[in-house]
């Protein structure tokens, strides 16, 4: 059997997906199914004086119409799993608005009809009498004493304050020879998975079981929370996440629509489907980022960092979704980045505004940290006249200093930051580009080089630090025929774990890849699991699979020892066979072992039949992938247009099971970061209206404008898990954004441009050039 771990093994998911035979939630059609459409608020903040649904109810083909008042006491409010401080203000999040609407897109009523066209027609027949209220669109404005209060019962728009600190920050700033200070905006983004959300609910009145097919990253957590909202025993709710068309955190959620469809299916005793439109996805599925803050870095003249502080306002939106309050706290955990910073402090105010909730978007709090710190490193380098590569080298945590604990108590597992930087500079031909830059400037052309050295907190994570458990589960079951079923709680949505988990099992059990079936995403089939987010699929989910395979192998070895008539420690596994060490001519196959375990006529009396093992893996720490990215760009100062000339990424995600999948994750993530850096901004105007409400107004990277990426890896295994894996799903969005911005700011340095807020659209770059020239 060739070794599979470490190989670019082609994906086992692909045959169904390239032939159109995948099954996404909207592909499900059930007999007697009806369709739901949702009336949403056009106002960011308004009192609902009256809702008249009578015309909609009379429309032919309409099955039911429900409003917030109809479900009071029938659907419990949506819970939030994160509580970073005990005094957190917790707004009550009803599934449908009751007296007030809090953001554009706030659900008000649901129409259920015989087809999706009639359901949408009937929305126009619902009459809502609104009393518009002054909106709070700007997070800083939300804190002013004269600001309208969004949640009147809470009496404030301040959701909570939070602080994290380590080392003596005040002393660091008192001793500083140089202090660099900059205000930064980490703009609000829309995740845009290509598959909008979709929910199908079916009630089995006989068994009293509700089945919910939903496009989610976390089927088991959906089951826990929705069963609570619907007062159903957890055993009477089955959640199925079939193929999921991308998540990026937007589907690391429990949404009110899941509870509403479940409720309607039970009430009507008919299957109900709701398919989100793209406009709804932009209005009412979570957004990401949205922090405005000031960072200060204290340094010695030689570039040694003494301390940093960051004071920030984070926009929660109108409500919390699953993890909303926890996201900006992740920024605080990673503020020291790859550097030995002896003192650090972050103070945060989290505020409510009349907007959709922010929550985990690919990177979730850590892209913000990398962006801030890596911009500061460049600003400091320029201030001190040090090469940006050199100032990073000077402050890096060294390979022999791991495990390394930051002053605020985060322990990094392993890494070699300078090796990644050196290799990235070499691949990018850094010195050559510096010369080219100099020559170009003489000709009035503006080339820039941007570096980003990042470290992320991944493999989420130890349960004590997670809102809802950080372990993962797996069952490996060898069937009587010797075929292997893997049940994983880590339900993937594009990352390819059906393939990487198959590779792990093949390696451990010596079976053929085609004999392994990975099953996930069905709470009735799979033991409780957490799901895939926080770059945890392989590092946590894969480790659980590895451990379950080990366990089942141990059982198989016991059975083999019995069959061979030798002691257990006399049995050696070679490929798929079990061999007697002392007499290698004696061997049994895995199939013979399976046969014996399931047909135990001749079998030890003290051993259980069957060949199944389950493992729950609890990680002892997070993992800390890292790397350096280098971007070279040229800016046309007449138009503000930026052209990416080269992009090099050298990443360290620990040991790798499938290099092809890793490369896909890294490149995809970098291009998503390119979207944040260059074009994306979820924009609400001062009246709280969502201006970027469709893909026509919110550009994401396309094939023709996406940069080409050169990818390489270095490898420092993680000591946290037996696979040595650190995770890779978020590396691109966490590491890449500042490389783009640093490159553009470097290009424009001779013009006096210090900093430009994202996104660097031609208009924003052009304005920054004009302003710098003007000053």
């Amino acid at each position, binding site marked *: 059997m060739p070794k599979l771990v470490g190989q670019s093994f082609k994906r086992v998911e692909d045959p169904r997906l390239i*032939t159109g035979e995948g099954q996404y939630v909207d592909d499900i059609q059930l007999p007697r199914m009806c369709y739901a459409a949702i009336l949403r608020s056009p106002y960011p903040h308004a009192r609902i004086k009256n809702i008249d649904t009578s015309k909609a109810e009379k429309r032919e083909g309409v099955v039911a119409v429900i409003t917030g008042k109809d479900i009071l006491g029938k659907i419990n409010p949506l819970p939030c799993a994160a509580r970073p401080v005990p005094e957190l203000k917790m707004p009550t999040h009803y599934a449908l608005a009751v007296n007030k609407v809090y953001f554009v897109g706030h659900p008000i009523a649901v129409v259920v009809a015989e087809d*999706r066209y009639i359901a949408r027609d009937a929305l126009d027949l619902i009459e809502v009498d609104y009393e518009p209220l002054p909106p709070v669109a700007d997070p800083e404005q939300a804190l002013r004493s004269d600001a309208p209060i969004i949640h009147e019962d809470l009496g404030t728009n301040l959701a909570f304050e939070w602080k994290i600190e380590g080392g003596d920050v005040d002393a660091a700033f008192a001793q500083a020879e140089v202090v660099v200070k900059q205000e930064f905006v980490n703009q609000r983004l829309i995740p845009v998975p290509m*598959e909008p959300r979709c929910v199908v609910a079916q009630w089995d009145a006989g068994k009293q079981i509700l089945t919910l097919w939903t496009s989610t990253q976390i089927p088991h957590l959906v089951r826990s929370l929705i069963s609570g909202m619907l007062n159903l025993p957890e055993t009477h709710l089955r959640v199925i996440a079939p193929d999921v068309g991308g998540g990026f955190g937007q589907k690391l959620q429990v949404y009110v629509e899941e509870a509403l469809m479940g409720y309607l299916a039970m009430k009507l005793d008919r299957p109900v489907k709701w398919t989100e439109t793209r406009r709804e996805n932009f209005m009412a599925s979570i957004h990401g980022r949205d922090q405005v803050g000031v960072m200060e870095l204290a340094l010695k003249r030689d570039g040694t960092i003494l301390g940093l502080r960051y004071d920030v306002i984070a926009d929660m939106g109108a409500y919390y979704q699953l993890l909303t309050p926890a996201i900006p706290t992740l920024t605080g955990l990673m503020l020291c980045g790859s550097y030995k910073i002896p003192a650090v402090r972050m103070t945060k105010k989290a505020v409510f505004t009349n907007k959709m909730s922010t929550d985990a978007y690919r990177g979730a709090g850590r892209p913000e940290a990398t962006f801030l710190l890596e911009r500061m490193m460049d600003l400091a380098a320029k201030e001190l006249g040090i090469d940006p590569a050199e100032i990073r080298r000077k402050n890096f945590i060294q390979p022999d200093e791991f495990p390394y604990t930051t002053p605020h108590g985060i322990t990094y597992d392993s890494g070699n930051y300078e090796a990644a930087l050196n290799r990235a500079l070499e691949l990018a031909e850094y010195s050559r580009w510096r010369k080219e830059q100099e020559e170009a400037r003489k000709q009035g052309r503006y080339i820039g080089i941007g570096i980003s050295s990042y470290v992320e907190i991944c493999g989420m994570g130890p349960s004590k630090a997670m809102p809802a458990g950080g372990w993962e589960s797996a069952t490996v079951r060898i069937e009587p025929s010797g075929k292997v079923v893997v049940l994983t709680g880590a339900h993937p949505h594009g990352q390819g774990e059906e393939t990487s988990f198959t590779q792990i099992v093949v390696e451990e059990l010596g079976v053929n890849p085609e004999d392994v079936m990975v099953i996930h995403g069905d709470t009735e089939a799979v033991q409780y699991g957490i799901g895939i987010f926080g770059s945890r699929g392989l590092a946590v989910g894969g480790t659980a699979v590895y451990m379950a395979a080990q366990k089942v192998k141990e059982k198989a070895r016991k059975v083999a020892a019995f069959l061979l008539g030798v002691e257990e420690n006399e049995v050696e596994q070679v490929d798929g066979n079990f061999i007697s060490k002392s007499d290698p001519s004696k061997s049994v196959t895995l199939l013979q072992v399976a046969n014996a375990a399931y047909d135990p006529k001749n079998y030890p009396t003290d051993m259980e039949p069957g060949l199944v093992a389950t493992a729950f893996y609890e990680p002892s720490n997070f993992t800390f992938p890292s790397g350096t990215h280098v971007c070279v760009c040229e800016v046309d100062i007449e138009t503000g247009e930026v052209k990416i000339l080269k992009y090099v990424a050298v990443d360290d995600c620990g040991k790798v099971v499938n290099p092809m999948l890793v490369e896909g994750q890294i*490149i*995809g993530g970098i291009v998503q970061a390119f979207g944040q850096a260059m074009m994306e901004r979820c924009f609400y105007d001062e009246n709280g209206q969502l201006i970027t409400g469709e893909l026509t107004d919110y550009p994401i990277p*396309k094939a023709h404008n996406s940069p080409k990426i050169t990818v390489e890896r270095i490898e420092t295994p993680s000591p946290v898990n037996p696979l040595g894996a650190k995770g890779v799903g978020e590396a691109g969005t966490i590491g890449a954004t500042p490389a783009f911005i640093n490159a553009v700011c470097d290009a424009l340095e001779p013009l006096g441009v210090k900093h430009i807020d994202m996104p660097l659209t031609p208009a924003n770059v052009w304005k920054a050039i004009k302003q710098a020239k003007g000053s």
Partner: protein
Amino acid sequence: MRINVTVNGRQYSSDVEPRMLLVHYLRDVLGLTGTHIGCETGVCGACTVLLNGEAVKSCMLFAVQVDGQEITTIEGISQDGQLHPVQQGFWEKHGLQCGYCTPGMILASIQLLKRNPNPTEEEIRHALVGNLCRCTGYQQIVEAVQWAAQKMRGEI
């Protein structure tokens, strides 16, 4: 209204509402759910199908507009159980992750290679500008199309 359409070589005769989108006809009436819906505004390309051999966005057409014409969807491009070279290319080169944009991406690529059997990287990137992918960053999609082009020219 009654329409007669050939889809993937099979003839269908159906009564449809005049306002029914082609993509809903393919998915909900014919059960061909390989064609996906990502935006309903003609931006994302997830619903791309071939209409008389030309790539079109099936959310931008009514079913009644294709009366008497021929449609090919992702379910209709493999022949006798043999994957189309573009499908093979996407599998070989990791041209997909979540798979949602993939059917549309494959059909747009088939149209490109019909018009231009030896496209440059830039030509491939421009030909796919109407199809959005949020997972791959497009690089491996470009490689998949290059692989397919070579295969179709008999070089692999």
